[in-house]
Structure formats: structure tokens, C-alpha cells
């Protein structure tokens, strides 16, 4: 187990190294840099001024040097300075992380706490009207893009209540905090919930046919015990995989949702930073997201062993 963990951590390190190269060079391939953008706005271009500014920002140096400068700084926790605000990049990024983390966490909580029970119900009631209704709802969840759903929610709340939910940066109570995050989290979590439901359903249908389910019934176990205790325990693995993947994909969904709901989280911030070619922000932020995704995958793999005793990580 220890050797497995060491090997696994080494592989994660290699993966992240590969990602860092991709991030860095993809960003350089995108035409224009911050200096081009600033000077284009000014209208007049003095090549000497431009060169000075590029030199000051360090983007005139060879790419390999720039890469080394960035990645060594990242490893030391020195994220450099934002080109746009000229404040330390870390200071810009850190306060936004909890906002997005809460949003993502709540969205995942929604998707698991709604998707899994509905999936179980749908499987147990296979072929009934309830099953069909739930499947139609889940299909709509998969088909509605979260930004469109977000806009729909905003429009509906204006039409019905005459106002729309506004982001409250300093919620005083738990309830206020929940109210602030619940609507956007629901908008972005709806898709995940729908996906979770479908995976839970198909996985449950598979498990409910197994011999040990009949054994559980033969013992005298109640339907609830059979479905949630015996069946769901066996059906949960694919669901965990999907929720793990969803956790990573959520970042993409959040970019639009944060924009639609005007929430100052990292996802929206990232899009703005890309627009300004704010290399220190984009590079470091994407790298942080990559770290989160890689660790989410690792957690999912470890959870496999927790939920299924047949899976053991040996050397």
C-alpha cells in the first residue's frame, strides 16, 4: 500500500508537470499579450515604450526562461504579480477560492443528495409512470446548459418576485449564506444531479438482478433495506466515478454560472484574466485547478477501496 501511494503520488507529479507545460504554451500560442492589448487601446504605439513594458514584465525573455521563472515560483508559492491590478497574484486569487469552493461543494451536494435517491427510486420503480417522469426530468437536466438555466431562473424570479437574487458577499447567518449560493448552485448542479441519477439508475438495475439481492429478501429484509443497504452499496462505485469527474467539469460550468449570477468567484475571474492575457493569474489559477482535479481523481480511486472490499491497492 505504501509503495502504491508513493508510485501514485509520483505519477500525479508527472501529470501536473505535463499540465503545466500545456498551460504555459497554450497561453503563449493565443495571439497578443497584455502589452499589445494595452497599446491597441491607446491607439498610438511607440515601439520603444512597448519593448520597455515587455521587458519590465519579463515577457521578452525566451519562453523556456519564462517557464522556469513561473514554475519555480509556483512551487515556492510565489505567484508573481497580476499584470492588470499589479497586486500579488496570490492576493487576487485566494479570497475568491472560498466563494467558488462553496458554490462547487453545494452543487455537488445537490447532485449527490438529489441524484442518488431519485436514481434508486427510478430503478426500483422501473417501467412505472414515476420512472418515466424522473427519466424525462433527468434528460432535461442533461439537455439544458447551465447558463441558459441560470438565465431562465433570473428571468423567472424577476417576473414572479420583481427582483433577482443578488450575491451577498458577507452573509451574516447560515441561512443567508445558503440563500446566496443555493440558486446558482442548483442551476449548475441540476446537470450533475441528472447525470448522477441516470448512472445510479442503471447501476442499480444491474445490481438488483443479482443473486445476493434475492438472498437479502430471503432473509426477510425490508424493501428499503434491500434497496439502500444491499443494492446501493454495490451500485455506488460508478456513481462515485461520475461525481468525481463532475467535480472536475464543474469548473467549466461555473465559469458561465458565475458570470450569469454575477458572483466574484475564481471561475469568472479566470475568464477576465484570459481576456487580458494576465499570464500570472491564468497560469497559476489553472494550475491550482489542475491540482484540485488530480487530487479529486486520486480521492475517487481511494474511495473505491473503501466502498468495495474486493479492490485493494497492492504493489
Amino acid at each position: 500500500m505504501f509503495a502504491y501511494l508513493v508510485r501514485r503520488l509520483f505519477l500525479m507529479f508527472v501529470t501536473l508537470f505535463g499540465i503545466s507545460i500545456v498551460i504555459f504554451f497554450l497561453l503563449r500560442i493565443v495571439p497578443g499579450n497584455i502589452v499589445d492589448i494595452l497599446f491597441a487601446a491607446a491607439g498610438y504605439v511607440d515601439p520603444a515604450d512597448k519593448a520597455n513594458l515587455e521587458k519590465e514584465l519579463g515577457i521578452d525573455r525566451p519562453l523556456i526562461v519564462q517557464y522556469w521563472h513561473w514554475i519555480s515560483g509556483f512551487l515556492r508559492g510565489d505567484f508573481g504579480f497580476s499584470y492588470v491590478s499589479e497586486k500579488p497574484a496570490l492576493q487576487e486569487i485566494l479570497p475568491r477560492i472560498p466563494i467558488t469552493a462553496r458554490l462547487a461543494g453545494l452543487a455537488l451536494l445537490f447532485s449527490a443528495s438529489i441524484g442518488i435517491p431519485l436514481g434508486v427510486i427510478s430503478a426500483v420503480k422501473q417501467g412505472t409512470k414515476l420512472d418515466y417522469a424522473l427519466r424525462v426530468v433527468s434528460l432535461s437536466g442533461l439537455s439544458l446548459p447551465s447558463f441558459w438555466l441560470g438565465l431562465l431562473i433570473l428571468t423567472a424570479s424577476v417576473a414572479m418576485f420583481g427582483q433577482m437574487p443578488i450575491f451577498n458577499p458577507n452573509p451574516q447567518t447560515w441561512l443567508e449564506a445558503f440563500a446566496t449560493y443555493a440558486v446558482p448552485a442548483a442551476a449548475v448542479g441540476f446537470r450533475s444531479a441528472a447525470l448522477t441519477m441516470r448512472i445510479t439508475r442503471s447501476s442499480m438495475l444491474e445490481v438488483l438482478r443479482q443473486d445476493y439481492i434475492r438472498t437479502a429478501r430471503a432473509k426477510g429484509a425490508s424493501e428499503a433495506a434491500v434497496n439502500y443497504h444491499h443494492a446501493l452499496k454495490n451500485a455506488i462505485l460508478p456513481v462515485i466515478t461520475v461525481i468525481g469527474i463532475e467535480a472536475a467539469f464543474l469548473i467549466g460550468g461555473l465559469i458561465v454560472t458565475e458570470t450569469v449570477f454575477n458572483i466574484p468567484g475564481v471561475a469568472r475571474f479566470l475568464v477576465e484574466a484570459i481576456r487580458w492575457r494576465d499570464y500570472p493569474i491564468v497560469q497559476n489559477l489553472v494550475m491550482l485547478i489542475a491540482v484540485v482535479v488530480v487530487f479529486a481523481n486520486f480521492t475517487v480511486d481511494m474511495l473505491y477501496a473503501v466502498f468495495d472490499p474486493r479492490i485493494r491497492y497492492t504493489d
Partner: protein
Amino acid sequence: MADTSDLVLDVRNLKTVFFTNSGLFKAVDDLSFNVRRGETLAIVGESGCGKSVTALSLMRLVPDPPGRIVGGSVTLEGTELLSLDEAQMRAVRGNRISMIFQEPMTSLNPVMRIGDQIVEAVRLHRSITAKEAHDIAIEMLRLVRIPEPARRAREYPHQLSGGMRQRAMIAMALACRPALLIADEPTTALDVTIQAQILALILDLQKELGTGLVLITHDLGVVAQTAQRVIVMYAGRKVEEASVEALFASPMHPYTRGLMASIPAVPASGVPAQARLNEIPGTVPSLVGLPRGCAFAPRCKLAIKRCEAEYPPLADWGGGHLAACWRAEDVAEVA
């Protein structure tokens, strides 16, 4: 009719049907039998003859849809099971009537410890603490002769061999000391050497606990070793019933005789082995649209016109030896 006071199970005119796309079929048709305390009743027949559906019907675990018990009565220790509601039936399952299945590899929950699965069976029916239930579980594992029961109780099914798993299944089924145990092909999936051990174990425990046993099998060798009485089923019906001695001495239904002829015999030394095993020609008929007459007639060497026209009644040919065949008296001569 014999004394009924020690009857554990009394099944009368049981009828279980399946509704399928190709029509309704009677998986169990008008089946009656009983089991006494401590007695072993074997139900034999080919695949698809309704043995397993009979077992599931007794447990009321026939998957509905497509199946349903549509008639008859199943009385367990004086209680009519077919009129119980689902909650009452749950209190009976695993408690007064238990079942072990054919596939020990897949019949245990792979993500639950062996001990916990037995504990669950006990706690569903006894209001005792987790600790007490755990002690019972270990005791049961010891009873089914699993070495180091305390350690095995903490293991998962995949860590046990097939024979061990079947022992664990037996421990689970007997944990509440049921009045009736149904064993549906309990040794079919096991190695021959293990089969004998498991059968011996079931019989020992049956004797020890006084449990009535319904042993479902297609193996007449197993029947000869274990049962006191035998029911032969064909196409959902009972075609013959007799004590095991009477059945092996003089089978009265051509189907039973065919089954017996299919048992490979060990050739005596010096005698060349039989080139080909005896078989019953044809297969069990589709249960949809059975012939009006005897369902076995199309495969029967003795069939006469009457067999195709009329279903033969189950008649007593002396000493409680029942057979449903128009030509029962001629069967012995032909063989």
C-alpha cells in the same frame, strides 16, 4: 391421510403462473406435497420443470411481474403463508422458512462481511444486541465447521472458497433455527468432493435442529443419499411421488425411469464402458401452450393415443406411491 400433527409444511394445489410476451405459462401447476418435522423431501426434475419456481413460491419470492401465485395454499406450521401481508411474510422469511441457493459465489453480498450478513439475518428476527447477534453468528459459523470462525466472520465473500461460502450461506439460513429449510441445488456449483461434504453437513444440521428440508436437485444420486421421500416434477406438475426406496426400486413414471437410466454407471472391470449415455430424447416442452394430454407424451416410448388426449390423474399405486401415467403398470415391464 396420515397424522398431520408433525407437518411442518403442507402445500396444496399450488399454482404459479408467469405472464410473458408469448403468453401465460403455468410454471407450477396444481402441486401438492407436505414435509414433516425432520424429514427430507427431494424434488427432482430437469431444468425448467418448475423446481426453483416451487421453492420461490414457498418463500413468496417469485418475481412479480412477470410471475404470480394464482392458487392453492401453503401452510407452514399451521399458518397460511399465501394470505399473509408482505410485512408478516417478511417476519417468516429467514426466520421460520429459509433458503439456500445454487450459486454460493454470487448469493452473498460482496461488499458485506460474512459475519455481518449472518448478524443481519439474526437481528431481523430477534430483538437482541449487536454483540449477542455477533456471538450467534460466530457460533453458526462454528456449527457449519468453518475453521477460525471469528476470523472468517470478518472476511468478505471473495476471500472464501466456494465450499466455504456455501457453508456460510447455510449458517445464515439456519441462524434463526427455521422450521423448514429449502435447499435449491445447494451443491450443483461445487466440486464433487465438496458436494459430499456440504450434503453431509446439511443432513447433520437438519438432524440436530429437527428442521424439515426440501431439497431441490436434478441429481438422483444426491436424492438416494439424502431424502426420505421424492417428488418428480415434469413441466410444472408432480408426475410421481414415493418413498426413496420405492422410487428407486420401481419407478412408475416413464420420465422417472428415463432420469434413472441417464445416471452414468461405473462399468465393472473388464467390461467395456458404455459407448453412449442413455438420454431422454427431446427437451422439456415450452410451458406456453402445453398439450392437452400428458406433457411427457411426445418424448415417451410408451405413449399411446390416450396419453395425448387426456392428462393422466395422479393415482395411488399402493403404499403412498403416486404416479400420473396411463401406463404406470407397464413401465416396470418395459425397462
